[in-house]
C-alpha cells in the first residue's frame, strides 16, 4: 500500500475551561484518534454534537479553534508532521494543500466582495495560479458544480445567490487551489432537503473528477453513506467504530453505531380522524406588517383531540407563521381559528386565560425558550402558579410529578438551564407546557436542534405523554422521518399554501403531486447508491418530459 496522504496517530486535543468561581483547568476533547486517508478517498467522520468531529477536522490543518490546543499526537500530511513544522510551512499548507468548507457559507463569505474574488484568493495568494488562470479554473469548477451561468456567477455578491448555490461556491473556493485534501464540515446541514440533494451530488461529482481526498464531517449517517468510502464513528472524543461505508451501515458492530443506524424506528399506529376537531383553522391568509406579500394564503387544517397533525415544509413555506397566527401573535388578514368549539380572538390580547392555558407551545431552541436566570423549578412552577394558583408544598409536589413525567428526577429543581443538556432542556420545555394541562401543544421544530438519538427520546416521550394526557400536537417540522414517526395526519406546505393534506397513510402513498414527490425523494436514505439512483431518476424524468 502506498504511503497515505494523511496519517493521524494518537491525536489528543484539549482545551482550558474557565468555570466561574473555580480554578481554570484543562479538559480533553479528543482522546487519541488514529486514521489514514489515501489519495482520492473520502473519510466520513460522524458523531453527535460534542463528539469532537469538527475539532479533528480542523486538526488536519493544524488548527485549534478558540482556546483549543492539540496536546499530543502526530498529523502527517504529504510526508511531514504538520504539528512539528514551522508556522510558515503551515501557512503554505492551509488553503493550499488542505482547504476547508464550513457549515454556513453565508457566514463565511465576505458580503462586501464579489464571489470570484474570494474563490480565487487562496489559489492566487499561494502562488499556484496567476489571476487569469485561477479564474478559468474557477469557472470550470462552477460549471462542474452545476451552478447556473458559470461564466458570470462569480461577478455576483454572496447575497445574490441562494443558500445552496453559495454552498457550492464555497466548494469551488476550496477546490480552486488544487488541494490534496478538503475538509467538509457539515456542508449540507443548514440546507433544505431538496437543496441538500443537489449540493451533495455536486460535491460528490467534484470530488470524483478532481481526485481530491476529503474528510466529510456530519451528524447524518444517511448523508455520509452517500459520499464516503470509509466511515469513522466518534463519541465523546473517542473512536467507536471504523470501517467501510457498506459495513458500517449494513453490519455495524458496536451498539452505539447500531443505535445510530436504526434511529427513527418508532412505530406509530395512525389514528383515524375523529368528528369534532379541537383546533381548526379555516381559510387563513396572513402577511407581516409592512409587506405586500401573503406568507400564508387560504390555509385550512383540522386537528383532532389526542392526535398529531404534522405541518411539513421547507424553510420559507410559512409553517412557523401558521403557528404565530394560531397563537395570536400575528392576527390574520382573513380566516378564523376555532378552538374547542369556540372562535378564538385574532389577537392575543382578546383571549381569555383559559384559552391561553389550553393552547401551549414548545419551541425549536430550548435554550432561548427558557429564561436563563430562572431555575427549572421556577420555569415549570410558574404556569402552575399562574393558571391554577398553586403555592408552596402543593406546587412542589406537582413540579415533582411533572419532572417524573419527563423522566428527570427532582434533583433538577434547583438547576439553571445552562446546567442542562440539549435534550434535558427540551424536556423541561415540554414539562412547562404540560403544567398548564393544555388541549393542544404546538411543537415548532422541537427536535431539529437535537442529536438524532436525543431527538428519538423526545419523540417517544411526546407520544407517551399524548397517550397519558390525551393532548393533541400540531407538529411543525421539515424532517419527514420525524413526521413518519409521530403524525396521524399531515399537511404539506409550499410557498404559503397547503399542497397536500390528509391522513398519514394517504399523504405518504402515491400518486404524489410534484412537490411532495420531490420532497419525499430528497430525504436521504441509509443505503449505498441512493444518491445516484435519485439523480438518475430525475434526469430520466426531465428527459422524458
Amino acid at each position, binding site marked *: 500500500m502506498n504511503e497515505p496522504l494523511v496519517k493521524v496517530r494518537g491525536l489528543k486535543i484539549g482545551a482550558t475551561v474557565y468555570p466561574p*468561581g473555580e480554578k481554570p483547568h484543562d479538559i480533553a476533547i479528543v482522546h487519541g484518534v488514529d486514521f489514514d486517508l489515501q489519495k482520492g478517498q473520502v473519510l466520513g467522520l460522524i458523531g453527535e454534537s460534542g463528539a469532537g468531529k469538527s475539532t479533528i477536522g480542523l486538526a488536519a490543518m493544524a488548527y485549534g479553534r478558540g482556546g483549543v490546543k492539540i496536546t499530543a499526537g502526530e498529523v502527517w500530511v504529504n510526508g511531514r508532521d504538520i504539528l512539528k513544522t514551522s508556522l510558515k510551512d503551515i501557512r503554505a499548507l492551509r488553503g493550499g494543500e488542505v482547504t476547508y468548507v464550513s457549515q454556513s457559507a453565508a457566514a463565511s463569505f465576505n458580503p462586501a466582495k464579489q464571489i470570484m474574488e474570494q474563490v480565487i484568493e487562496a489559489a492566487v495568494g499561494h502562488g499556484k495560479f496567476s489571476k487569469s488562470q485561477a479564474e478559468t479554473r474557477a469557472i470550470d469548477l462552477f460549471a462542474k458544480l452545476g451552478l447556473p451561468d458559470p461564466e458570470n456567477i462569480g461577478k455576483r455578491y454572496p447575497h445574490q445567490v441562494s443558500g445552496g448555490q453559495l454552498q457550492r461556491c464555497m466548494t469551488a473556493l476550496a477546490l480552486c487551489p488544487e488541494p490534496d485534501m478538503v475538509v467538509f464540515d457539515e456542508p449540507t446541514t443548514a440546507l433544505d432537503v431538496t437543496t441538500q440533494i443537489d449540493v451533495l451530488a455536486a460535491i460528490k461529482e467534484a470530488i470524483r473528477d478532481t481526485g481530491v481526498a476529503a474528510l466529510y464531517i456530519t451528524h447524518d449517517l444517511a448523508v455520509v453513506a452517500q459520499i464516503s468510502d470509509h466511515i469513522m464513528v466518534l463519541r465523546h472524543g473517542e473512536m467507536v467504530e471504523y470501517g467501510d461505508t457498506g459495513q458500517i451501515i449494513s453490519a455495524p458492530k458496536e451498539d452505539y453505531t447500531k443505535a445510530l443506524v436504526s434511529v427513527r424506528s418508532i412505530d406509530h399506529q395512525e389514528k383515524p380522524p375523529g368528528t369534532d376537531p379541537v383546533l381548526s383553522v379555516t381559510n387563513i391568509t396572513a402577511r407581516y406588517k409592512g409587506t405586500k406579500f401573503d406568507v400564508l394564503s387560504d390555509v385550512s387544517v383540522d386537528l383532532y383531540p389526542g392526535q398529531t397533525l404534522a405541518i411539513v415544509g421547507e424553510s420559507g413555506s410559512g409553517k412557523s407563521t401558521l403557528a404565530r397566527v394560531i397563537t395570536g401573535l400575528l392576527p390574520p388578514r382573513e380566516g378564523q381559528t376555532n378552538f374547542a368549539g369556540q372562535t378564538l380572538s385574532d389577537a392575543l390580547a382578546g383571549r381569555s386565560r383559559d384559552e391561553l392555558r389550553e393552547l401551549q407551545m414548545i419551541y425549536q431552541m430550548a435554550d432561548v425558550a427558557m429564561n436563563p436566570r430562572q431555575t427549572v423549578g421556577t420555569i415549570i412552577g410558574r404556569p402552575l402558579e399562574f393558571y391554577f394558583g398553586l403555592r408552596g408544598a402543593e406546587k412542589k409536589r406537582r413540579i415533582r410529578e411533572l419532572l417524573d413525567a419527563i423522566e428527570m428526577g427532582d434533583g433538577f429543581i434547583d438547576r439553571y438551564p445552562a446546567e442542562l443538556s440539549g435534550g434535558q432542556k427540551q424536556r423541561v420545555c415540554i414539562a412547562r407546557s404540560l403544567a398548564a394541562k393544555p388541549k393542544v401543544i404546538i411543537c415548532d421544530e422541537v427536535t431539529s436542534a437535537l442529536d438524532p438519538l436525543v431527538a428519538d427520546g423526545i419523540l417517544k416521550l411526546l407520544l407517551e405523554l399524548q397517550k397519558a394526557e390525551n393532548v393533541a400536537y400540531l407538529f411543525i417540522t421539515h424532517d419527514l422521518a420525524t413526521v413518519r414517526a409521530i403524525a396521524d395526519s399531515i399537511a404539506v406546505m409550499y410557498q404559503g399554501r397547503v399542497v397536500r393534506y390528509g391522513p398519514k397513510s394517504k399523504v405518504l402513498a402515491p400518486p404524489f403531486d410534484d412537490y411532495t414527490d420531490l420532497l419525499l425523494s430528497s430525504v436521504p436514505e441509509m443505503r449505498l447508491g441512493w444518491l445516484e439512483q435519485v439523480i438518475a431518476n430525475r434526469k430520466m424524468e426531465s428527459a422524458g418530459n
Partner: protein
Amino acid sequence: MKNIPISAMIGLSFTGLYFFVAIFAPWIAPYGMAEVVGDVWEPSSAKYLLGTDSIGRDLLSRMIYGGRTTIFIATMATILSFTTGATLGFIAAVSGGWVDQLLSRFVDLIMSIPSLIFALVVLSVMPVTVNVLILVMGLLDSTRVFRLARAVAVDIAVMDYVEAARLRGEKLLWIIFREILPNALSPLVAEMGLRFIFMVLFVSTLSFLGLGVQPPQADWGGIVKENKDGIVYGIPAALAPAFAIATLSISVNLVADWVLNRTTSLKGGRG
C-alpha cells in the same frame, strides 16, 4: 463571600472606607466643618494632617464632611436615575409602538441639550437645595440609563422565553421585572458604577461653578474652588479632593467589575 479576587478586595475596602467615613463623619473629623482653627494655608502637621484651607479651616475635616455630602448626593441621584431610567426603558422596549416612540423621542429631545448647561439653567431659577440637586441630576442622567436599558431590553424582548411569557398571558410588570430585568442586570450594574462616578464629577462641577452645594456646607467640588488660588503659590490643598475623587472612582469600578463577573454567570452566580 469566598473567592473574592484581589482587585475586588481593594475596591471593596476603599469604597467601604469612603462610605464609612461619610456616614460617621461627625465622629471621625477632628474639627468642625466650618470651624476656623488656624492660619491660612498652613502646611500639614501633626495638628492638621492635611494642613488648613484658604480661611484657616482644617482641610481633613472639610474633606470628610465634603465627602459625606458628595457621596450622599451622588448615591441618591444614581438610585433615582436608575429606577426611572431603567423602568421607562424597559416599558418602552416591551410595549413598542407609540409608547416607545413617545418616550424615546422625548429622551432624545432632553439629550440634545448639553446636560451641564441644562442643569445650570434649571438651578439658576430653582432654589439650590440638596433635594433639588438630586432631582435635577438624577432626572437628567436617567436619559442615559433609559437609552441603555431600552437597547438591552429590546434584544431580550424578542427572545422566545419572553414570547412564552406573553403567550402564557403574563402582565407587563411580570415581563419587565421577572423575565427582562434579571437578564439585563449585568450591563446595568456595570453602567451603575460608571454613572455613580459621573454623578460625583457632576456635583463637583456644579459646586465648583457655584451652583451646587452652597457654602459654608463643604463638598469636594467646593473645596477645589475655595483652594484653587493656592495652586499658584505651590499649596496643594486643591489636589486633595481630586485625589479623593480619583481613588473613589477606581475603587467603585473595581467593585462593579466584580459584581458584573458574578452576575454574568448563567449558573445563578453561585460560583
